[in-house]
């Protein structure tokens, strides 16, 4: 197992775009090569070592055998783990926008908060956020019709609005509340919300959403039977009828 650690050399005022920080990319690079990887800070082209202290094991390993540890505040560093296919990326702090977008495999552990667009269009692998996450988690790129296509996202705290927008497959679990419109325009996949939410499943055509807390419902959902899942009673709804949808929405009955 090869471990590489990055620490910011300073607090960033301007956002950094660092899609190169990924086990899939670092695996075949020496530490020297990693330090010269190109990143953008605003519109300045820079080297990774200009912004971060890069340390770790020298011998190369496969992506599966590669672990990257990010120590410190990465909340202004965007696109971390973009397209990663294997290995482990651990963030000991907060992470910036679009972490794990297009992720295909491997594990991303975020010990703090995640910003917007986490796991955008991901198709495999697993992302765990110990605290809260922003808006558009597991959604599609702006204007695209297809969001998350596979894999798992787990959020220990709460999430923002438009969770899993345009989701096609995969699973998102949020322990706490979510913002408005989780599962909007869903075409598949599963969303579990431990807390409260507002207007879930707008324009959903397929897939399922379970809400353990309170949910303010859209009027375009049709009530179906009451079901018991894992010992808890849920009211099942079908919709969104606006789209002739066959999506399934379960809201715990004791919360209403």
């Amino acid at each position: 197992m090869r471990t590489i650690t990055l620490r910011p050399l300073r607090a960033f005022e301007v956002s950094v775009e660092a899609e190169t920080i990924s086990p899939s990319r670092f695996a075949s690079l020496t530490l020297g090569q990693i330090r010269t990887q190109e990143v953008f800070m605003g519109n300045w082209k820079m080297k990774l070592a200009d912004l971060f202290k890069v340390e770790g094991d020298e011998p190369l390993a496969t992506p599966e055998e590669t672990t990257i540890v990010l120590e410190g505040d990465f909340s202004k560093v965007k696109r971390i783990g973009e397209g990663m296919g294997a290995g482990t990326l651990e963030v000991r702090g907060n992470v910036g926008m679009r972490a794990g977008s297009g992720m295909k495999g491997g594990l991303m552990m975020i010990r703090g908060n995640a910003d917007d667009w986490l796991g955008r269009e991901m198709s495999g692998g697993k992302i765990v956020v110990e605290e809260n996450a922003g808006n558009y988690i597991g959604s599609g790129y702006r204007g695209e019709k297809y969001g998350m296509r596979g894999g798992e996202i787990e959020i220990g705290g709460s999430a923002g609005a438009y969770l899993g927008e345009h989701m096609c497959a995969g699973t998102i679990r949020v322990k706490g509340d979510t913002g408005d419109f989780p599962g909007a325009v869903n075409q598949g996949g599963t969303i579990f919300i431990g807390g409260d939410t507002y207007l879930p499943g707008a324009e959903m055509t397929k897939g399922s959403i379970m809400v353990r807390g309170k949910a303010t419902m859209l009027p375009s959902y049709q009530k179906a039977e009451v079901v018991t899942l894992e010992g808890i009673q849920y009211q099942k709804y079908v919709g969104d009828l606006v789209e002739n949808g066959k999506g399934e929405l379960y809201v715990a009955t004791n919360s209403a």
Partner: protein
Amino acid sequence: MIIRGGIVYDPANGIFGEEIDLCIDRGRIVEDAKGEEIDAHDLLVMAGGVDAHSHIAGAKVNAGRIMRPDDARLGMEQATAVCRPSTGYTVPNCYAIGYRYAHLGYTTAFEAATPILESRHTHEELEEIPIIDKGALTLFGSNWEVMQCVRENDLKKLAAYVAWGLRASKGYGVKIVNPGGGEAWGFGANVKGIYDPVPNFDVTPAEIMKSLAQVNESLRLPHSIHVHFNNLGKPGNYTTAIESLDLFKDIKPSRMRQVVHVAHMQFSAYGGTSWKDFKSEAPAIADYFNKNHFCTMDIGQILFGSATTMTADAPLEYGNAHLLHTKWSNHDIELEESSGVVPLVYLRKNPVNAIQWAIGMELALLTKDPWNVILTTDHPNGSPFVNYPEVVSLLMSKVKRQEELSNIHELASKRTTLTGIEREMDWCDIAIMTRAAPAKILGLEDKGHLGVGADADVAVYDLRPEEVDPSTQHDLVKKALAVAKYTIKGGVLASRDGEIMAAPVGRTFWVDASVAKEDEERMMEDLKEKFDRYYSIKLSNYMVQDAYVPNPVVIKAGALPVEEVAP
């Protein structure tokens, strides 16, 4: 500059694949020159390409960009020492449009539709498109003043308005889109045929089209009227196309050119009564163009993949958006037009799309004279212009067409005649369809050819026409045309092997037509009332100021006594 040893195809000057040295001085082709030499030995050389119908600038193009961030991400390219950054595929940013035309060896492109009211925006974007020369056609087909003049049967006043509208918009020619339909759409309706009166105006699309064609000739404009027919995109619309064409049979051209150019004919060559029995009527249309020479067309080829439809035919876009259940932008342009934008994907296995693809091919191949049928994809309605090399390689190779036919929905073979068409175009046909004819149709005398005095717009392709057989080596044709070896624009080497070497500023053509003062005064009285009562802006803020067209080429035209017009 001298371009040495190329195999030159310059059909306008009767040159069909001869080894010629081209001399360039101060932006023009000349007899003799000194200086930098470009080695083009044995390579295909043609005049810079001319696109006579493309949607490259203005409010609807920008609406496409705004509603399609998903498209922007498909064409991201970083800035270089010469280039600004590029984005987009079907709706590229302004810079990318210039660079990508230059990569194709194209040096001129005309925006096919701008309402007068939106023209300032159109010119702001045209100015930002590097390298190529350009112009914009001005929309007149659903305009209140036009319809009022037609109703009053006052063609002199109409001529005064058209001349004024071209000046107000710094426009190049008269574009007509679904005449009358843009007005009807203001009431949620459409005109159903060329004799269906426009609500509240009591004029028919036929009267609008014919009057504008007459006025176009009385003003001796360099380009003819440029028409997008009624019922475009609907099964069975080929009868509307032929009915419309018949209107112009007796109109005398005022210049050596057609009296009507039909935009993206493919979308108006449909048979059947619904999408279920949808079929091609391209042979009937091609037959009409083979028998009549007062009309020209561009094919408006569709290609499979992503496109963004955008047109002043707003009811059509409403139909598209509902049929495809997709994003839709709808726009009302006060007293002038309406418009819409809908992104879509053409699919090989969709029977309608497959038939549409074959219809475009049929039109190009069955129309005998390439001077009457030019290559477009109605960018980005049928496909983005970067895919022109695909269209050319299909037209040159029956093998390639058959391969594609076997990959797409079988109805393309059953409901069109494409399978039986043997014709394979040669380089002469292609040079006509992509440069010589579009320049002639637009009335651009210094474009589309390489005679002495022509603009020094030259494309050199990395293909040896004496060695490559386009019929079997269609992949080499496509590859070579996609990335010109050298593109020279106005004597400047702009692009080389896919790299932009220089980004000279292009010029914008517009037409300044003179009319009798009394006609203009009568027309201005009408306009003043319209601005006072209806327009959201003041007449004094309406005209596009000169500052918005910093590199103009002004073509003078205007009503002259009949004797001087006669050929």
